[in-house]
């Protein structure tokens, strides 16, 4: 018996024991999908938020359109639009040498998740940056700080406090949304669970998957509480 079969054996669930290893590697894929898309989403979202607030007008308008589209349509539609839709232009992608990317459901999934979460995160960062009193940047300028230093040392630390809670919510949303990867043939946690159910017709495997997702969300919630306590330690709120 390998390590991933033990939880099932301990719980006395035959399906979970038989498919424990597939579900463990599925959980790995889920975590990978979420970590990569959320991480890239932070970088892109932050850039877009700054451009949305301070960029030239045409850029601001394009970004407004981008955010409206990706926040106004379901992630499932975006995923299918990329995987099936963009994937259907095979000759074009082969010509530009990107076919390896759009052929692979994993890359398509990562692309869909990243641009989706980037749109939501851009809105979170925009709200956080806008919530800062104008005097903060003014005072920093009066002290002779350069614009980039003002952003990094004055605006960002304060904006992060405001953005932290909604960012945690967005991470939880992404964990749950990553289950959609199973609909484009990927074997993430949900995909492995669906496979186990399709072969065993034992519903309890879905409940096990629900418990695993719940555990993930609970872990993130606690980590986020810790982060918040750390970021606000100078405020003496409690």
């Amino acid at each position, binding site marked *: 018996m390998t390590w991933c079969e033990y939880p099932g054996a301990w719980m006395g669930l035959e399906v979970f024991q038989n498919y424990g290893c597939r579900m463990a590697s599925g959980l790995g894929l889920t975590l990978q999908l979420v970590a990569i898309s959320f991480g890239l989403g932070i970088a892109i979202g932050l850039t877009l938020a700054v451009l949305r607030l301070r960029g030239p007008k045409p850029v601001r308008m394009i970004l407004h359109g981008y955010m*409206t589209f990706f926040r*106004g349509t*379901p992630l499932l539609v975006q995923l*299918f639009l990329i995987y099936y839709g963009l994937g259907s232009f095979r000759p074009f992608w082969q010509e530009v040498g990107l076919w390896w990317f759009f052929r692979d459901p994993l890359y398509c999934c990562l692309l869909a998740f990243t641009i989706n979460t980037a749109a939501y995160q851009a809105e979170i960062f925009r709200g956080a940056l806008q919530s800062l009193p104008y005097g903060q940047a003014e005072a920093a300028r009066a002290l002779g700080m350069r614009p980039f230093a003002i952003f990094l040392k004055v605006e960002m630390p304060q904006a992060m406090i405001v953005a932290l809670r909604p960012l945690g919510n967005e991470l939880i949303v992404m964990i*749950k949304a990553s*289950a959609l990867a199973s609909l484009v043939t990927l074997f993430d946690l949900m995909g492995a669970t669906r496979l186990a*159910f399709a072969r065993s017709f034992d*519903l309890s495997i*879905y409940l096990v998957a629900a418990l695993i*997702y719940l555990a993930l969300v609970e872990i993130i919630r606690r980590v986020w509480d810790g982060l918040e306590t750390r970021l606000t330690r100078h405020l003496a709120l409690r």
Partner: protein
Amino acid sequence: MQYYLDLLSFGPEGWGDELLAGALVTISIALATLPFGLALGLAIAVAKRSRSWSLRTFATLYTTIFRGVPELLTLYIIYFGVQVLAQRLWSAMGLSGNFDMSPFLAGMVALGVVLAAFSAEVWLGALNAIQKGQREAAAALGLTKWQAFRLVVFPQLMRVALPGLGNNWMVLLKETSLVSVITLQDTMFIATRANVATKEPFLFFGAAALIYLFFSIISTWGFDRLEDRANRGHARAGASR
């Protein structure tokens, strides 16, 4: 170009009428879920404020579970789970044949219980925002508890809860796309079928995206109007008059 327009046209050749029917299913399942989910959510929020320990624990467990489990998984558990349970009950009663749960009902229940969990948090925040004095004053005027809720608390509750409930509605609208996986013939389902038949995925998923976008933009506009209406008795900071 003409080819694509023909594909989207109404009639036996085009998919326009099917897509429109799918859009109607999307909006009807969202509208059917809304009152059920919001009412259940309000009940859960009231339970969270209850004096009874068991009610509070139940409500907290409920929101923790349904906010933490992927909607797709909830949908599967309810669709297959209820089917299996009902089938057992069906056989236990000595009835022959199969019990089939309609995908519409399964989708409505699954989306509804999730909506209830999320809206409960919004209701709870709004309930906490209403001062105790309001209820005390209502009691002093001789209103019953139910009258105080209906005539004094609820109208104020709506004003505070509306922005959060608006978000809940937008999330619900987009989550309805998941019911296509249990074969309910909504926008997403039709787009998938059109893609299988015509091999034009970009066109049909693009059309589906525009349908959802249309509903989202209309909803944003509608909720802005509702908020204006709910706030009409309140002066806004900085508003010119």
